[in-house]
């Protein structure tokens, strides 16, 4: 396929996907709609992580921390921290409506990401992985420790401000009243699809080319006039901003935030999601998001409630035996890596290649 045809196929696929996303809630239960809202949230975080890891080649094991920054930003802007006894310059009054906090959360997390990008310039590979991991490990404890600012171990909940979040008061859009689950679904997916298109726009042009050059060979990138520092820091900033938006939506979705909302395991799951979805690919990430969302919740408790529908192979496992679901999920993850070395996105790419060679072998 020529690049132009490729682009066309991409547009059609994206448009079809938007239609599917828009119509899906009509066919599934409210409970399921809420679950798919979380898939949208994870998709946003995965898009961000893929920009950094898949396209720029910088491993991060700490994106949960950037999500936490976004989540806390949203909660603080809505509720404020004066109730925890915070006074002076750090006091935040709150009172902002939930949807308006989302871009601010992204901005704040993005700035934190840029700031983190500077010291991270010195590190690469596993050393960078540890440094980011350190941030993820430190975040929950730091949130507990600075309780005048963050509400400490019990965190901040949004129940006190029902008028600010549609999670607690019904929303009316175009004269129709939306149930919480549907509202959440559409909110998360609207943001996710806009950011998906945004990621595509960033990655297709000059910036994306520079990112890939940094990933493939730093030396060659520098020789071609690509500034390593500039693009690595930029990748960190964009990536963290995406994570911040995801964290903000996550907080709105669960109507509270506390230090355990964004655990270390989340950061690791995000990396798993990116690799399962496909490094350096955008389309496959939807599957990565589905995978980690259902893996995360179902891993421990609600195995039999949801999984049989999605993963019939492991649905038969006796859920009265604790540990067996985790064993099965671990095995599924390993098998996925065996058979899909480039993630789900790899299938797309291979299908495209097959199509191309078919066209040319026809003598077209």
């Amino acid at each position: 396929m020529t690049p132009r045809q490729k682009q066309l196929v991409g547009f059609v696929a994206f448009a079809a996907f938007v239609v599917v996303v828009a119509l899906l809630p009509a066919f599934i239960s409210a409970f399921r709609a809420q679950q798919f809202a979380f898939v949208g949230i994870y998709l946003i975080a995965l898009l961000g992580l893929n920009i950094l890891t898949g396209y720029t080649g910088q491993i991060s094991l700490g994106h949960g921390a950037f999500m936490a920054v976004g989540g806390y930003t949203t909660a603080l802007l809505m509720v404020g921290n004066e109730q925890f006894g915070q006074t002076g310059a750090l006091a935040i009054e709150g009172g902002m409506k939930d949807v308006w906090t989302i871009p601010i959360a992204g901005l704040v997390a993005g700035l934190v990401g840029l700031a983190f990008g500077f010291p991270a310039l010195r590190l690469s590979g596993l050393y960078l992985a540890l440094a980011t991991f350190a941030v993820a490990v430190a975040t929950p404890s730091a949130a507990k420790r600075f309780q005048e600012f963050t509400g400490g171990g019990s965190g901040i909940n949004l129940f006190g401000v029902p008028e600010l979040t549609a999670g607690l008061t019904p929303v009316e859009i175009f004269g129709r009243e939306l149930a919480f689950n549907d509202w959440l679904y559409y909110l998360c997916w609207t943001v996710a699809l806009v950011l998906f298109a945004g990621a595509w726009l960033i990655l297709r042009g000059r910036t994306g080319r520079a990112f890939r050059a940094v990933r493939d060979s730093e030396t060659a990138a520098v020789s071609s006039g690509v500034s390593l520092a500039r693009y690595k820091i930029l990748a960190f900033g964009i990536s963290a901003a995406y994570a911040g938006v995801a964290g903000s939506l996550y907080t709105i979705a669960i109507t509270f935030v506390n230090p355990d909302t964004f655990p270390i395991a989340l950061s690791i799951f995000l990396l798993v999601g990116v690799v399962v979805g496909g490094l350096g690919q955008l389309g496959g990430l939807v599957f990565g998001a589905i995978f980690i969302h259902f893996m995360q919740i179902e891993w421990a408790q609600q195995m039999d409630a949801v999984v049989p529908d999605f993963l019939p192979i492991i649905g038969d496992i006796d859920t009265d035996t604790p540990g067996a679901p985790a064993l099965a999920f671990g095995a599924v993850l390993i098998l996925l890596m065996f058979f899909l070395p480039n993630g789900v996105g790899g299938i797309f790419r291979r299908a495209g290649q097959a199509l191309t060679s078919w066209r040319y072998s026809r003598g077209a």
Partner: protein
Amino acid sequence: MLAAAFADFMQQVVSGFASGGIYAALALALVIIHRSTGVINFSQGEMATLCTYIAWTLTFNHGWSYWPAFVATLVFSFVFGLATHRIVIRPVERGNVLRVVIVTIGLLIAFNGFVVWQWSGEPKALQSPFGTDTIDVGGVVISWQDVGTILVTLGIVVLLWLLFQFTKLGLALRAAAVNPEEARLVGVRVSWMLGLGWGLAAVLGAVAGMLTAPTVGLDPQMMQPILIYAFAAAVLGGIDSPLGAVVGGLALGVLLNLIGVYVDFVGAELKLPVALLVIFVVLIVRPSGIFGRPEVKRV
């Protein structure tokens, strides 16, 4: 007053060395695997936990005494590590490193699930081979458990060093890790050497697990925080340097103990983040760890 304070300080240092020895053993396991396979084995901690459960089963269910069970567990862990490499890691070894990393995360989840499934999540007690007695060295009270932990980890580390440095097998192991292509040309069976590396790493992990269990209690999550410390220790020392892993582990053990006790602001809550912050700063100054060599790439 000053003497008492000093004795107190020394006590913290000694128990720091004991936990540091455990971090060092696990960090060394990570380094061995990273040198040969180029990945961080996230399942190292869970492999250690699983092996420790084997030791528990042998002592508790089959009435073995500690040391025979210890040796049997080491043999088991070696075979276990080797088999893990042959069956699960070898097929994905070529290609993207991240793929192998994700496989080890899959192993982490699967092994953890297996342990919970087999032995339930309830904590078990593994007896200590060293008893609960303490000795008094010039006012510094030291438990035999700490002394034993330090001696056993040091012993294992020295044995490994002898193996790597002075035997033909050790030379082959190093050759396979440093330059697989040329090692293959001179007749080293590289794939088996990498497998042996996994086996030895599993042995180190099992030692760390069996020494940890008596003090903190054996449960499926036992080694997870220790893996984080070991990871930090390995990176602090330089991820490819065995000496770095040992020094890094001991330094981290002592550092953690001292800041937990003496820095009021930190306390138990912030111990781990502060330790990681210290490492972060060290890495900014020396991006390849204290003993690591900066990677030189050919274009």
